[in-house]
Every structure is written in structure tokens, then in C-alpha cells.
């Protein structure tokens, strides 16, 4: 796959970092504004998919990216579990206990463990969808 025309590549260069940044904003402000890990993760996938579609698989090392994305997927689901287990031992034997101080409603650093879960679920969603997407592209390359 050769990628698309130079117009698309230039627009991709302009926009891709801003799309990724917006995804990070949706994830980190998930407990204050609409959004959260699920939505933000899907937006982050959009940024990566844009690069893969615009530049084509020749310019990128897809096998390496696939390994990286499936590794970060496993890592983030492990982190969610670890956070939950820590809650089990810190609080009164309750899984998914919110053990950090909750702070003031409406501030960025508040709500205890909820933002942390948001971040790791966002990583999980992004990595899983990216893995699926890259697997499809690699399948297309190899089946020629």
C-alpha cells in the first residue's frame, strides 16, 4: 500500500497531533465533562488510523507497531486489575474500592481512583482497536 496523495499527507501532518491531544483531553477530563476512557480511546485510535491510511504501510513498520500495541493492551488491563486489587487490600475488603481522597467536586485532581481507571481504560480501548486495525492491514498486505 502506497499511501494517499500529497494533499492528504500534508493535511495529516497538520492535524494528527491535535486529534491525539483532543483524545487525551477527553480521557483526562472524563470525570468532569462528557467523555471518558471509552470515547477518548476511540478518538486516539482515529489519530493512529489516519497516519496508517495516509502514509501507507510501506513507510511504517507495522509488525513493530502491532507488537507495541498488543503489549500496551496487556499492560493496561493488568494495571486496571492491580488498581482494583489494591483497593481490595486498602479498604474494607471491597473490590474496586475508591481509596484515594476524593477532593472537591469539579476540580481536575479529584474523584480518587476514577481518573486513573479512565486513563488505563482509555489505553486499553485504544490499544485493542489499534491492534484489530493493524491486523486487518497486515492481512491485506500478506494475502496479495
Amino acid at each position: 500500500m502506497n499511501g494517499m496523495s500529497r494533499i492528504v499527507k500534508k493535511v495529516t501532518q497538520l492535524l494528527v497531533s491535535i486529534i491525539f491531544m483532543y483524545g487525551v483531553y477527553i480521557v483526562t477530563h472524563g470525570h468532569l465533562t462528557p467523555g471518558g476512557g471509552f470515547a477518548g480511546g476511540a478518538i486516539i485510535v482515529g489519530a493512529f488510523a489516519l497516519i496508517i491510511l495516509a502514509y501507507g504501510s510501506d513507510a511504517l513498520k507495522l509488525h513493530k507497531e502491532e507488537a507495541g500495541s498488543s503489549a500496551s493492551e496487556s499492560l493496561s488491563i493488568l494495571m486496571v486489575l492491580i488498581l482494583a486489587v489494591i483497593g481490595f487490600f486498602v479498604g474494607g475488603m471491597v473490590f474496586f474500592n475508591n481509596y484515594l481522597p476524593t477532593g472537591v467536586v469539579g476540580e481536575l485532581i479529584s474523584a480518587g481512583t476514577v481518573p486513573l481507571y479512565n486513563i488505563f481504560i482509555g489505553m486499553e480501548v485504544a490499544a485493542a482497536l489499534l491492534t484489530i486495525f493493524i491486523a486487518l492491514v497486515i492481512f491485506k498486505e500478506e494475502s496479495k
Partner: protein
Amino acid sequence: MELLLSIILGFMIIGAIFALHARDLLSALVAFGIVGYSLVICFLLLKAPDLAIVQIVVETVTLVIMVAVILNSTREEVKDKLRWQSALTIVLALLFIGGLVYFYQVAIAPLDELGMHTTRMAEAYIEGAAEKTGSANLVTGVLFDFRGYDTLGEATILFTAAIGVLTVLRLKGKKAA
């Protein structure tokens, strides 16, 4: 409100019927996009901005994956037309539809009118959410605090699906390092 939602749902039904009958698979996907993106408008009208954000992104990703699959293979619809094999098939289908409509009637009877919902179970969540979790977004509070197990299960399903796709689509084995 109800009228507006009914109109949008009518469009969704028309789009769905067209998506299932289109000759070209690519136009079928475009028609399926009508259904998904109309759902986003419905979510916004129903005061569910979280869901609207998720649905608009998920619909886009789904369409991208579907178009990738179709460009990989073929756009041709399978030629054979639907044949009504016998009168028995029709009778069975009508019986089935009748049964479904009956159970729908039974299920819909105890529900409240649209917009007259009384929050029974979520009362505790709404009352306690701000103090207990400190999260201003109640949906996120429910999702990651009160119902953390659901989220964990959901993440597990995503993980399994990704691994399944990797397994199904692997053509060459991994080279021995």
C-alpha cells in the same frame, strides 16, 4: 419530543431496510452509516452526551473497518434471490413474528410513558455519587466506581476480541527469533 424522535427513528428504519437490500455492498455500508449517525442525534436529544461522543467515534471506526474488509475482497452482492420454499415457511415465519409481537406487548405493558420515568434503582447513585466518588460526571462515577466489575468485564471482552482477531487473521507464523 416524541414526534421528533419518531421521525428520526423512521429514517433509521428506512436506512436499515435499504442497507439490507442494496445491490452494492459499499452503498449498503453508507446506508448503515445513516442508522448509526442518526443514533448520535437521538442520544443528544435524550440528554446523553457521553453516549453521543462514544457512538460517533465507534460508528466511524466500524465503518472504516467494514470498508477495509470490503476493499480487501469484493463489492458484489451474492446474486441468488430469496426463494419462498413453501407455504410452511411463510406460516412458520408469521407464527414467529406473532410470538415476538405478543412478548413485546407483555414486556412493554408495565413500562412508564416516555419521559415519565421514575428512578428507583439509580436514586442511590444520584444521591450519593457526588459525595462518595467525587466525580462530577455521574455516568463515569457509576461506570468506574459503583459498577467497576462491568467495566472490567468489558475490558476483558475487548482484550479477548483483539487476541481473537490476531489469531484468525494470522497468515504466516511468527518467525523464530
